[in-house]
């Protein structure tokens, strides 16, 4: 009843092609942004900001990057964490070695470095597909952290390969408190998500999807496979690189190459599988599911055990949490193999008909 586009007539191409064609969607997105920008900083505690919302946004951006490559262009990658590492270490080095460089420029350069590395590791995609490509990107996952450890120049000769991020400062304004860091991450993520949403609707986005669905047919209708695939790798790695820089600068503060391990790559892959492959929204839903649910379960189970008067060591609740988490993943994949984004889409379709489904 409320969510229905009847009566909204499109009278121009611009109106027809806009990002959110339905008025209610526009209102929804704007409300969400307003809540995230105004209400959350006012209401959320430091714990929520630093331990929950910032990592959620950072992982959502990384998942978005992977979704561009895997979901839209159909190239399976297991090197996400490595590209994040490149972004983090490149941003650190640009910031360290070029005096007075603005932090956002460092981030962009970090992203571009990551894009270049991504293109390099994307080259095998021109010859191999599917699982074989996943193995090729796995090489990036092992090679890059190894290189960052091996060449101590990357970590400014830190004895243990750990880098500590410099303060984030834009035009004299220092993003040091949790609220400021959160707003910084939020703005970067929102802008990049908007750019991604536009990109997948543009010619290049359609080319990606054509290659994903059938590369031979795409080539026949005149899409240059090489260019399309490599751009997908570049854009995806750029997103991951910026996510990596945010991970280092706004979330952890200091990172080591080993933090960007295969485990992290898999986590991000699971995010898009659970959230929805080939969906911008799905990246956010998946990141929320994977980052927030374990924390939620942990708190519920720990407090629940105390409530019941059980004296469980913290290890037991942690194991129980893994069991419940695994079961939930399986449950969601059985109920909706296409991901949470698909559930959201179904909900919207139902809402359109509600309350008269016939």
């Amino acid at each position: 009843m409320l969510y229905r586009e009847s009566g909204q007539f499109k009278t121009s191409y611009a109106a027809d092609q806009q990002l959110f064609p339905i008025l209610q969607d526009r209102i929804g997105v704007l409300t969400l942004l307003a809540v995230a920008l105004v209400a959350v900083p006012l209401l959320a505690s430091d714990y929520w900001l630093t331990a929950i919302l910032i990592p959620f946004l950072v992982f959502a951006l990384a998942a978005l990057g992977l979704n561009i490559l895997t979901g839209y262009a159909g190239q399976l990658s297991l090197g996400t964490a490595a590209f994040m590492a490149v972004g983090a270490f490149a941003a650190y080095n640009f910031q360290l070695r070029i005096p007075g460089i603005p932090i956002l420029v460092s981030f962009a350069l970090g992203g571009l470095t990551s894009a270049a590395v991504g293109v390099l590791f994307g080259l095998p995609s021109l010859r191999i597909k599917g699982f074989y490509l996943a193995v090729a990107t796995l090489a990036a996952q092992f090679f890059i952290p190894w290189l960052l450890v091996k060449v101590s120049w990357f970590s400014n000769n830190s004895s243990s390969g750990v880098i500590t991020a410099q303060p984030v400062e834009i035009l004299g304004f220092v993003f040091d408190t949790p609220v400021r860091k959160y707003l910084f991450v939020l703005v970067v993520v929102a802008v990049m998500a908007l750019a991604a949403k536009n990109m997948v609707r543009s010619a290049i986005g359609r080319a990606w999807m054509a290659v994903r669905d059938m590369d031979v047919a795409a080539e026949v209708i005149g899409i240059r496979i090489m260019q399309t695939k490599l751009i997908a790798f570049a854009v995806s790695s750029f997103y991951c690189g910026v996510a990596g820089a945010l991970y280092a600068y706004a979330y952890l503060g200091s990172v080591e190459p080993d933090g960007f391990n295969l485990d992290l790559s898999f986590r991000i892959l699971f995010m898009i599988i659970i959230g929805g492959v080939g969906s911008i929204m799905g990246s956010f839903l998946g990141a929320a599911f994977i980052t927030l649910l374990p924390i939620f379960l942990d708190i519920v189970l720990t407090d629940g055990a105390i409530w019941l008067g059980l004296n469980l060591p913290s290890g037991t609740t942690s194991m129980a949490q893994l069991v419940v988490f695994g079961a939930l993943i399986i449950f969601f994949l059985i109920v909706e193999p296409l991901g949470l984004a698909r559930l959201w889409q179904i909900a919207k379709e139902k809402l359109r008909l509600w309350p008269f489904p016939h």
Partner: protein
Amino acid sequence: MAWKKTVAAAVAAIACIAGSPGAIAQQAGTQFIGITGYRVGPYGANGAAFFGGFVDYLQLINQRDGGINGIKLSGEECETEYNNAKGVECYERLKTKSATGPTAIHPMSTGITYAIIDKAPTDKIPLITFGYGRTDATDGRVFPWVFPIMSNYWDAATGIVKFIATKEGGDANLKGKKIVLLYHDSAYGKEPHAVLEAEAKKLGFELKMIPVPHPGNEQQSQWLQIRQYKPDWVINWGWGVMSATALQTAQKVGFPREKMVGNWWAGSEVDTEAAGPAANGYYAASLNLGGKGYPVVQDIEKIVYGKAKVGSNPKLIGTVLWNRGVAAAMFTVEAVRKAQEKYGKKPVTGEQVRWGLENLNIDAGRLKAMGFNTMLPPIKVSCQDHGGSGQVRFQQWVGNEWKSASDWMKGDSALVRKMIEDSAARYAAEKNIKPECMGG
């Protein structure tokens, strides 16, 4: 989050009424101690022993002494699984649980230490990194909030070299010897590189560094390299399952275990018992002695396990890591006691605990009074030296227990101190910190 506090308070109240054993739930007017622990994952066995001892000592203080000068201890443990991101989440969660903060955090992971080291000064929470973490944090002028109490990795590395030298019959005999550093390929494993390279140059031995990828349960290729290289000694810089695998693989390739020296994270029952007979003869540096022959351990056994029945796991009592957990908890408790001397007998804040840590002075008499006797060396912390001792002791596994193999000894402390100051100065320059003592 007001409702959360209400819920937490309600939960605490119910837990108290139910008299739930063991759970040292949070209460007003207590000294709340936040614990970022781990008992699951690849390092869970090590964590369970350490945090078991840690919590048992806190229970002892509550049960035997009724708290610190009448201020009861309360606490909460958050599971990190030795994972940096989870560690940060736990740190953030524990930091707001009480008005006085989490007292002092023992991250028990070099990675987590690095992840929260820059947060500590803003949150005003002291970090105690008992034998791990960032070595240059020993310079308290640059790192006022971090306390690598007792000895750091560089003390360990130079101590091991010195131990090898005594076994070879003096520093001069090290010339031309070949030593392999078999290390866990992580921030932890890379800490000793620079100092060992400096030692190799100074004493003229050949050093080869061989990484073992996490978690380290597959070491065929590494030991193949070792066999080809034919070293005189192997230093095992392992953690968790890696150490036991190293010992077993050494046995397989026929490398004598009497020529292997571990550091203190590779020298506990967890490592040697898992390796079985392969561990016989293996040496390891230690921060503390294992065993039950200390009054404090007997008190815990009698009061915490016997009378109050709130002990964590009787099987772990007296193991090296469990004793280390007891010692770590003792540092926190003593820092609080010291802070109470200056700031009054009430729950003390992070800032006050920091002062307490910086002025910690535990001499042999105090150790004896607390029942630790010779388990630890005397420790005197100061602003310049957040370590306070720099000593290590070596022990040898003789099939069923660790036997002491040396007295408390120091490595090359002049070299270590110089490297600490250089490294801390670099950090200070990078971060724009003006090195100075913080005072009270």
